[in-house]
Every structure is written in structure tokens, then in C-alpha cells.
């Protein structure tokens, strides 16, 4: 269960962004999560809520985009999506390939920010 420490890193990164951007409220964090990241999405989302408690991120959402594994097929000389992470073969010609192009990401892609204008008197 290393999802809590990953969630805490995400919250820290978002907090840094709040400081950088000045007085803003983050309502959501968009995360890209590779199928080979070693991170379980459900556990991460649950941990995120915990990690947010008592921080300026409390109440914000974690929006996870699943990133599928893409490999490079040496025979087709092309990038192919992997049909299963239990079988590293080209989906078109069946050639085994260990060459991963995408799928290990744990990346904060974007933040949803709300800027509150001062109340009109």
C-alpha cells in the first residue's frame, strides 16, 4: 500500500502550485496513471481524500485518467497498444517486445482552479 505516500506527494505538489499562483482554490487535480505505474487507482482515490484532510486541498477531487500501455513493435516498426499487461506482444503481428513507449506515468497533468473575485460592495 504505497498509494497514501503517492497521494501525499500529489497534495504537496498541488499546495506548491497554490503558493505559486497566489490566492486560489484548487477544486480538482487531474492525474495521468499508467497501467504499469504500480499504483492501484481505487486505493489512490481513497488515499487522496485522506491526504487532503486539513490541507487547502480538502474537498477537492482527484480525476484519474487511465493511460494504457503502448509498446514499440520491432517487426511492424510501429507503436501498438498492448491488449494485456500479462502479454507483451504486438497486437498486430504477435512479436514479443519489451519496449515500452507509454504506460508508467504517475503524472499530475492539470489543476482545476477557482479564483474568487472580491465581493462587490
Amino acid at each position, binding site marked *: 500500500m504505497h498509494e497514501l505516500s503517492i497521494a501525499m506527494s500529489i497534495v504537496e505538489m498541488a499546495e506548491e502550485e497554490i503558493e505559486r499562483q497566489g490566492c486560489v482554490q484548487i477544486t480538482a487535480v*487531474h492525474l495521468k496513471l499508467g497501467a504499469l505505474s504500480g*499504483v492501484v487507482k481505487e486505493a489512490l482515490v481513497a488515499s487522496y481524500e485522506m491526504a487532503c484532510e486539513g490541507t487547502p486541498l480538502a474537498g477537492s477531487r482527484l480525476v484519474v485518467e487511465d493511460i494504457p500501455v503502448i509498446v514499440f513493435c520491432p517487426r511492424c516498426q510501429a507503436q501498438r497498444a498492448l491488449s494485456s499487461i500479462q*502479454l*507483451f506482444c504486438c497486437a498486430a503481428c504477435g512479436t514479443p517486445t*519489451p519496449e515500452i513507449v507509454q504506460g508508467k506515468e504517475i503524472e499530475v497533468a492539470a489543476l*482545476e482552479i477557482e*479564483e474568487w*473575485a472580491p465581493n462587490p460592495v
Partner: protein
Amino acid sequence: MGAEPRLVEVRKNVLKQNDLTARGLRQRFRAAGVFVVSLVSSPGTGKTMFLEKTLSLLGQNYRVAALVGDLATENDAIRLARSGAPVKQITTGTLCHLEAAMIENSLEEWDLNNLDFLFIENVGNLVCPSSYDLGENLRLVLISVTEGEDKPLKYPTIFNSADVAVVTKMDLASAVEFDWHSAYSNIQAVRPGMQVFKLSAKTGDGMQEYFDFLAARRDALRAAIAI
């Protein structure tokens, strides 16, 4: 009162800090000429026995040392110290994996220039360690014949992140009806081309082939540094 929601692009790797620390470690290891091997396995695979034998046998010809990650006890470090090699325990508390910063902190009193091989034993866990680069030159995944041939299919991510696989406790293979070909093809399915060693740390069968491989990898790295 007007809320203006907007999307700010960030594109930051969450494990960036770990990756940076690992990169720094790799440079240090390279400068010192030490070849670093990390070990991952399930609890109970026989990682400590395997490492104990590695340290005492490889230690006859090379200067070896080990860092050992464990949740709570120092038992593994005490066992490994019997080999005569320098051993340091990293107690992770409740953390289920080692991170690059823990390796960095543990190396403070060691002169890496006096080492040929450094082994890092990760916490027994086939899930969490896969995401964390420790600056190692080689990640070795260890399974034993008693765990079943489908272990690679159950934990494809860690097998995929490893560079070499070792199947140990081969002395028990026939007793547990271990199917070597099935295990081998499962490893190849999740990591095509991965080199696999079969051995018994207890009897020593197959260990020499694995040592020769480590020595060759170390020589190749040193040759690359010399150029």
C-alpha cells in the same frame, strides 16, 4: 461574487523527487565503480538466504556489501552480517518499499570506492517497490519454486520493471512439482527477452552461473566508464 474555474496545465511527475535522487545515486555509484543490484521478491521467497550466500561466495573474490530493507526487525541484517560483509539495516517502519532517499541516507558512512558490488534488499513485496527507482544498475526479481509458476502473471508490473529473474529453491522443484517451462514462459510473456537463472541458494547449484553474469555485467559497466 464570481467563481472563474480554469484548468492549469502542470505535467509533473509525482515521483520526480525520487527519480532525481536515484539519478544522483546512480552517478555516485558510477563514479565509485561499484555495481549495484537491488532484490525484490515476495515475503518468504528466501531473499535473505539468497543474499547471504551471494555475499559469502561472491565476497571471496570481490568486495561486497548490502543494505537491507525490513519493516520492523533487524533479524535479516544480523543473519547477513555472518557473511562477514558490511551490512546495514534500513528499517522502514510501516513503509512497504524502499525509496531513493533512504538509500542515500544509509550510505553516509560508507566509502563506495572500497566496494565492487552493493546489494540492496528491498522489503518483501511484489507491488510497491516497482514504482521506485533506487539508482541501481540491475533490478533482480526473485521467485521460488514453492510460489507457483504464475507469479509473473499475477505481478506483471514488478517483473516488467526488473532486469533479470532468478528462480530459487530449485532443490525443492520435484517435491512441489514445479513446472520450469511454464514459469519461464510466464516470465517471458510479461518481460520478453529477460534472462532467467535457476538455482538453489541452499545447495549452491546454479549459483556460479549467476555470479559469472554479475561479474560480466560489472565488467561491462566499468569498461563503459573507462571509455
